[in-house]
């Protein structure tokens, strides 16, 4: 499996990358970790004439605190997310999710930026970013803009990112201390995309849900932010009846494809099961 020929570019700065991509237009693609794009190129489902490798741009790496936000550079790998003490401390949901992505070799190279910018409904980070209320900084020829993750995904492989733009950083508002979190993913085997998965963030006060946010992976053309389900749960003690209602509200917004991972109906039900498990798991982690 040999990809079609292309020219390779390795810019040293975001400015240089953006200028190149603007010049190349539809004939250029940004290369991050390459673990979605290179397999597509080998299958000749993608054959960009030019690859603009972002690996040489130091400013796109690393995790830092900026005011109330945690900022993650787009070229930070899943492995680097997993070993980041800052993330383990402030947003353990990220580590929990990264550990369920693909396998060790893929996690050494696969990046958070590639994962969120690709627009593949099978990617895990997008639903997590909806759940966390993240936003993305993107830079194009005409400058920088910020897009809320909840407004970024428009369809399968269709995002608010325009040709020539590079996603540079992911900004996540620091979650409240003592919050509970969980990412529950059903997959057939290591390396598989989710049959269905659910991300949950919640805070409890006096035994009742104070705040709750839910993201769902791979059960529609885009990641889903299950607002109605979260609304139902808010103020409740996470009792069985309320959880059932919330699960039903989450299931109703799904529209998965029937594929090798199961018929649509099954995948919808599994989204509900993952959500119920994630709620329970997240609740058990609240406090402190």
């Amino acid at each position, binding site marked *: 499996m*040999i990809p079609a020929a*292309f020219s390779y570019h390795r810019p040293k700065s975001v400015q240089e990358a953006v200028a190149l991509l603007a010049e190349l237009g539809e004939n250029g693609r940004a290369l991050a970790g*390459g673990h979605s794009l290179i397999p597509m190129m080998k299958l000749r489902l993608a054959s960009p004439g030019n690859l603009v*490798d972002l690996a040489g741009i130091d400013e796109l790496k690393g995790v830092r605190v900026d005011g109330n936000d945690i900022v993650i550079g787009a070229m930070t790998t899943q492995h680097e997310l997993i070993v980041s003490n800052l993330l383990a401390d402030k947003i353990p949901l990220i580590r929990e999710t990264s550990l369920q992505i693909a396998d*060790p*070799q893929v996690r050494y*190279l696969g990046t958070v930026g590639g994962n969120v910018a690709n627009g593949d409904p099978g990617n895990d980070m997008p639903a997590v970013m909806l759940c966390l209320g993240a936003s993305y900084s993107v830079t194009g020829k005409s400058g920088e803009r910020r897009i809320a993750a909840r407004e970024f995904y428009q369809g399968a492989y269709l995002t608010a990112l325009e040709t020539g733009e590079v996603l540079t950083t992911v900004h996540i508002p620091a979650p409240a201390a003592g919050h509970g979190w969980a990412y529950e993913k059903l997959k057939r085997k290591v390396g598989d995309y989710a049959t269905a998965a659910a991300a949950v963030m919640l805070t409890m006060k006096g035994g009742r849900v104070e705040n709750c946010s839910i993201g769902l992976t791979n059960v529609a053309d885009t990641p889903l932010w299950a607002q109605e389900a979260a609304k139902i749960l808010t103020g409740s003690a996470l009792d069985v009846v309320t959880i059932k209602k919330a699960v039903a509200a989450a299931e109703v917004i799904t529209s998965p494809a029937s594929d090798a991972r199961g018929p649509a109906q099954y995948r919808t039900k599994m989204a509900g099961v993952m959500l119920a498990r994630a709620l329970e798991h997240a609740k058990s982690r609240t406090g402190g």
Partner: protein
Amino acid sequence: MARSQIELKVNGKSVEALVEPRTLLIHFLREQLNLTGPHIGCETSHCGACTVDLDGKSVKSCTIFAVQADGADIRTIEGIANADGTLHAIQEGFREMHGLQCGFCTPGMITRAYRLLQENKNPSEEEIRFGIAGNLCRCTGYQNIVKAIQFAAAKLNGVPFQEAAE
């Protein structure tokens, strides 16, 4: 298409080469450097037979272009043995514990285990299984591969290897 000049280190030796940008690292290693230890198994980023160590990371060399490895320090199975030619503890473990049958996955398994043991000197069985989840073996059922890595960890740590009771 214009070729790119790359310079890298492979198994401790400096290498300079011209590559087409679309040349995958596995093809470069096998066909240009004649390092046929890393195997082409699935060619779809799943099986791990092509695993090599690159700048302290285990990578599937079928899913990275050789141009991306410009400046990198790479170790393949050919570079795992000790400098005096004796087997590395992991290689010895695979021999002693029967960690292979057909042997096709073995170069990738050993190269992956090498990095795993660099990061975690004394992994639990669960950590070993999680750590080699990107390497498929269709013969052994993994049991003896896990033992081989446990054997190697014990040897590298200078403690006697105790096989878990079955």
